[in-house]
């Protein structure tokens, strides 16, 4: 019975979708933007960044891992939710060393773009300034741990033909980091490196010898907020 079409509410409006579809996918197809950082359409969701938190029948759930069910009442934009999202973003900004002026990804960065969309002017939390390293051993790829938000996008998507990942968790607890598996360096071609850079929502993964390709003012989030493509597709 999983293919049944069911009725449910998003922000008070009635929608129809197949039972079992994730809230985030229905919202995206219906022109409702729910911010995400770790979610990638078509890849099994992990719910690690919590940016997509929505209210489901009054409870806060991550929209990327929660399937819809009959009569569900989903709220995506209450003032409390917006404040919660801002808080999550601010935590991400203080938890690492996100110095936008020196980052090659600036202007094309999802984390920064969400900061712009929610107009975060300052973080309410104290900056941690953790001591992190930069791994530039790979001939094609730089991994800057200062900018990594541990979303696992690269771990989940960048794999070789046999399904072996190029990226893995390293260390534990608050020292955890996502590292390049250097034993796979020979298989990590320029093309794989490019895919990894494109999937990274921040400037944690950068391709060597190719920075600042797009001139300022032509960059992805320069004029239009992140999510406007989703919202405008349905107007």
């Amino acid at each position, binding site marked *: 019975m999983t293919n049944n079409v069911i009725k449910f509410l998003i922000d008070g409006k009635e929608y129809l979708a197949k039972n079992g579809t994730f809230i985030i996918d229905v919202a995206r197809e219906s022109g409702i933007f729910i911010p995400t950082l770790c979610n990638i359409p078509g890849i099994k969701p992990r719910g690690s960044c919590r940016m997509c938190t929505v209210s489901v029948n009054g409870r806060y759930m991550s929209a990327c891992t929660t399937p819809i069910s009959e009569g569900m009442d989903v709220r995506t934009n209450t003032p409390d939710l917006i404040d919660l999202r801002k808080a999550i973003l601010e935590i991400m900004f203080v938890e690492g*060393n996100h*110095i936008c002026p020196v980052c090659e990804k600036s202007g094309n960065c999802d984390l920064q773009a969400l900061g712009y969309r929610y107009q975060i*002017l*300052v973080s309410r939390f*104290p900056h941690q*300034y953790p001591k992190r390293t930069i791994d530039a051993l790979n001939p094609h790829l730089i991994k800057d741990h200062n900018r990594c938000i541990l979303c696992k996008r690269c771990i989940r998507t960048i794999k070789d033909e046999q399904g072996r990942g190029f990226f893995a968790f390293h260390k534990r607890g608050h020292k955890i980091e996502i590292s390049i598996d250097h034993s796979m360096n020979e298989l990590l071609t320029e093309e794989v490196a490019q895919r990894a850079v494109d999937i990274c929502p921040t400037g944690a993964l950068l391709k060597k010898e190719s920075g600042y390709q797009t001139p300022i003012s032509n960059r992805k989030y320069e004029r239009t907020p992140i999510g406007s493509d989703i919202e405008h597709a349905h107007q």
Partner: protein
Amino acid sequence: MEKKKPIVATTSLAGCFGCHMSILDIDERILSLIDLVEFNKSPINDIKKFTEYCDIGIIEGSCCNSENVYTLKEFRKNCRVLISLGECSIMGGIPSMRNGIPIRECFEEAYMHGPSVKGHNPEMVLPNDPELPMILDRVYPCHEIVKIDYYLPGCPPRADLIYDALAALISGNELKLPYEVVKYD
């Protein structure tokens, strides 16, 4: 009697003066700004000390040494409203890239082993004169030292953002933040 113009003071702490350049980047609107406000202590007019209580204090840059902290506290004492202008002031910015690196290591790189000083400091002297401001253990954003009232991000903040913010503050109108002006780079 003519109504007294609001008084503005500005300073650059651990910054690059880029934000002050951006203040000047309001172009011909600087003429209308001069009509609206009066400048007190500021590098723009080279007034070194506060001569009266100010309405608006604009802070560029973060706090990296004791003098920055002193200046910032002076601004808090002498200004009704303080604005953090630019990334350094708000989150430490580029100066804060030294946070996490021990001071000795920073000094050795800057005065002994760095490519621009190598061989020019044969006695390996580190600056340690009591006249010099003490460097802090790390770089602090301004709001971790004193209360800051408003924040204008950007590196530098867009000239339009600075002008609109000042105009809104002076006129008492709500500041509108169009998407294009709030940027972190």
